[in-house]
């Protein structure tokens, strides 16, 4: 029908131009088919937890570790309407009338901690086959899957992470595939679906993986890749295809602009019929992901342990036109800390995990502070439902190992490794990651300096709403935990 209508229309318009008849009425023009690759509508979601909007809170007289490498002590911070409404030295900040006041004397405040590498919800507790949803290991390149679609919002690990002061996480697909799929950045408010936990307007991540995992997963069953050269081939192949896809998209977008112009003109009777409507490439969810990554709309996160492999991936990114935002695990980042700093590529690392496989053999306890001391973007990540509960301690272990080795790193630097730096790597640093006026009120009150083993998060706010209170009667968020004998989340 569409085709015949178009042909008829073209005929009549041709007639009109030659015969000097009056322009046809607009309603005789067919509807434009338009964008051939529609995307699912974004929900208008904010992850503001409090409903109604929580009352203003003022934490007065605490040491404020700002997450930007500095501190204010004693300082006062005011949370209002989901944002940080005021922050500064205690003597300068006026506590608004009606605000709940929290005595911060002797206590510490940090931005909500941010983990760039979590599998909470996609490898949920209990860890059984039924909850193993983090790796689509049916093909080594699956850029078309979204971790968000596996995420189980009832994972008991969510609440435990919040009790450790974590407010934002990136949930990644696993590392079984060379290209594992899209990662999603979530705020850890208890909700019934992953979409409602999305960090508003945060870019997706793309998970890639080097080294032993993909070659083992596929190689062990005689499939490709079974070697590191196979890994790199699969990556290159995928990005080359994506480049072609992106070019065809660009070509389509240009053609479409020209055609639309002609169409509008024809509607007004001012020109020839535009001819056949241009159609974009068939929608390919995988190539779309990679193409968006090439445009910087999706941030690339690469699981990579060895220094030489990180350098290979960097070379590949230059060859094929994408940017690596962060390497993950990166146990040999210290060997190329200067390169990572120069290339502005972050490294998301453990403080001390090592030895579970050969590519983790050269791990050192000073990896994180060496990346920092070289001017790079050091990040403490968890990759674990246990470690995520103690990111502050992991930062502390790394910090003091670095200090003992004579590296120039400070306590305030260490806080950036779990706040500002991961915020940058997730593309959300404009709204979280540091304590600044106007930023989202994702804030943690610690009972002592969080670089102590004994420190606990006393209270945690997300978007200004209190989501964890160590002193209050605990309520389990997860339906899964209803009926167990455990009555409280401690510490």
């Amino acid at each position: 029908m569409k085709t015949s209508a178009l042909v008829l229309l073209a005929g009549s318009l041709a007639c009109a131009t030659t015969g000097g008849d009056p322009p046809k009425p607009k309603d005789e023009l067919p509807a434009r088919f338009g964008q051939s690759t529609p995307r699912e509508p974004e929900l208008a979601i904010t992850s503001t937890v409090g409903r109604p909007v929580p009352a203003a809170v003022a934490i007065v007289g605490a040491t404020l570790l700002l997450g930007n490498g500095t501190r204010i002590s004693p300082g006062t911070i005011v949370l209002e309407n989901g944002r940080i409404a005021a922050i500064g030295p205690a003597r300068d900040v006026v506590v608004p009338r009606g605000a709940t006041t929290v005595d911060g004397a002797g206590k510490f405040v940090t931005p909500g901690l941010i983990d760039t590498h979590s599998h909470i919800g996609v490898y949920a507790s209990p860890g059984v086959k039924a909850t193993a949803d983090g790796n689509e290991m049916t093909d080594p390149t699956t850029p078309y899957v979204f971790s968000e679609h596996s995420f189980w919002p009832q994972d008991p690990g969510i609440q435990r992470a919040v009790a450790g002061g974590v407010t934002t996480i990136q949930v990644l697909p696993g590392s079984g595939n060379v290209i594992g799929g899209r990662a999603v950045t979530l705020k850890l408010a208890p909700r019934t679906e992953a979409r409602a936990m999305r960090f508003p307007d945060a870019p997706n991540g793309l998970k890639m993986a080097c080294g032993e995992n993909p070659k083992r997963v596929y190689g062990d069953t005689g499939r490709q890749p079974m070697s590191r050269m196979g890994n790199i081939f699969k990556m290159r192949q995928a990005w080359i295809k994506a480049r072609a896809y992106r070019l065809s998209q660009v070509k389509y977008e240009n053609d479409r602009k020209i055609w639309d112009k002609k169409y509008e003109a024809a509607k007004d009777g001012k020109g020839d019929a535009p001819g056949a409507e241009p159609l974009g490439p068939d929608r390919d969810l995988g190539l779309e992901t990679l193409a968006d990554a090439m445009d910087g709309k999706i941030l690339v996160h690469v699981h990579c342990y060895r220094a030489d492999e990180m350098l290979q991936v960097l070379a590949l990114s230059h060859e094929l036109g994408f940017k690596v935002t962060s390497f993950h695990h990166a146990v040999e980042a210290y060997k190329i800390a200067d390169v990572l700093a120069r290339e502005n590529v972050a490294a998301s690392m453990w403080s001390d995990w090592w030895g579970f496989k050969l590519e983790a053999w050269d791990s050192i306890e000073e990896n994180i502070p060496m990346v920092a001391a070289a001017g790079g973007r050091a990040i403490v990540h968890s990759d674990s439902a246990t470690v995520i509960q103690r990111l502050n301690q992991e930062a502390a272990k790394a910090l003091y190992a670095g200090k003992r080795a004579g590296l120039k790193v400070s306590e305030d630097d260490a806080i950036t490794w779990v706040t500002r730096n991961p915020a940058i790597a997730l593309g959300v640093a404009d709204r979280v990651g540091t304590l600044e006026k106007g930023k989202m009120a994702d804030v943690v009150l610690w009972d002592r300096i969080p670089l102590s083993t004994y420190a606990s998060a006393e209270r945690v706010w997300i978007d200004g709403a209190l989501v964890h209170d160590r002193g209050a009667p605990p309520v389990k968020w997860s339906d899964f935990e209803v009926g167990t004998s455990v009555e409280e989340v401690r510490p």
Partner: protein
Amino acid sequence: MIALTLLLLGAPGDLALVGGKVITVSGAVIEGGTVLVSNGKITRVGKDLPAPAGFEVIDCANKWVTPGLIEASTRIGVVEIDAVADTVDSAASVPDPIRAAVRMDDAINPRSALIPVARRHGVTSVVVTPNGGLVAGRSAWLDLVDGDSPAWTHAFWGPLAMHAGLDASAAGMSGNSRAMSILRLRELFEDARLYARQGPAFERNALRKLTTSRLDLAAMADVLSKKMPLVIAAYRASDILRALELAKQEGLRMVITGGNEAWLVAAQLAAAKVPVILGPLDNDPGSFQTLNSRADNAALLAAAGVEVVLSTEQSHLASNLRFYAGNAVRAGMTFEAALRAITLAPALAFGAADRYGALEAGRVANLVVWSGDPFEPSTAAEVVVVKGQRTPVESRQTRLRARYQKRLGL
């Protein structure tokens, strides 16, 4: 005469750790205390003791001195890289799930690269624990001596304890049923008793068919005679009770390992005087046998009078034992109880408390000088003495760090 003089004056390697906050664990904390070490043993512990002539003096002013830490559940020495099968000797991959005869001391490499990494954080002894199967085999005691010193050739001894499971993993190895696990264990005890009584008849082939091999049955003799504890992996409260019943019925010395839900049966564990080895960071329902995990498990058990042993249950990261203990304190355990749980308590659980786990004259000189509270990351283990010898503060990791620190000019 010469030897006597040397002893009085101090021999090479004799140490005097002077003026520290000495936490003996078995007795009082001694501020300004001194520990004397000679011939691999602690010879004196006390306040204001002068350093004898000839002893190397280590100034411990403003330092803390504790017994060396003991990791009670690890594979240090029998694993190098988990994903490199050639380097893993902790689990015997044989069809029979009963591997009682297996001894970890037959496989230990006391020059493993894992050892200096743990030792740098104050771990001086470990229980090298077999895994896999229903009965995994027998553990060994390993002192983390300097692998480059002559001491490495006699760093370990065993067999130490028998290790078995009544957990999901053991059930998976015995017909996928807990009922089958316990059935096979009872059968093993019965046959081991028969074998002990009727060994000659077995050799003449004049006995009924026995459940497992001759060597496995022979290995069970020390368990039956209570010379050796039976360490049972059990996480679910009901599995722990089954284990306690087994201990009572068979008359065993038992230790529970795992124990996530032990707090639910704390009174029974205390009454049975059965120690529990547990991981203090296990606080989530990671499996259906740990649905009631909680961070204050250790604190609740200690309060109920159970001998708690804290463990990382890790090998490469046994270095974190001190932080695990610190987190147990954060969850309500006292500092004293947590330190005991990584020193004297594991020594007690494995029948080595006469020689390890406390700073007392006559014990093996395994001790650590800390720059402060050992559970804090800002604190370092500055001196680590194992079997009376100061150990190097280096590891392969510190050498790699130094190499690249220099290369990058950091």
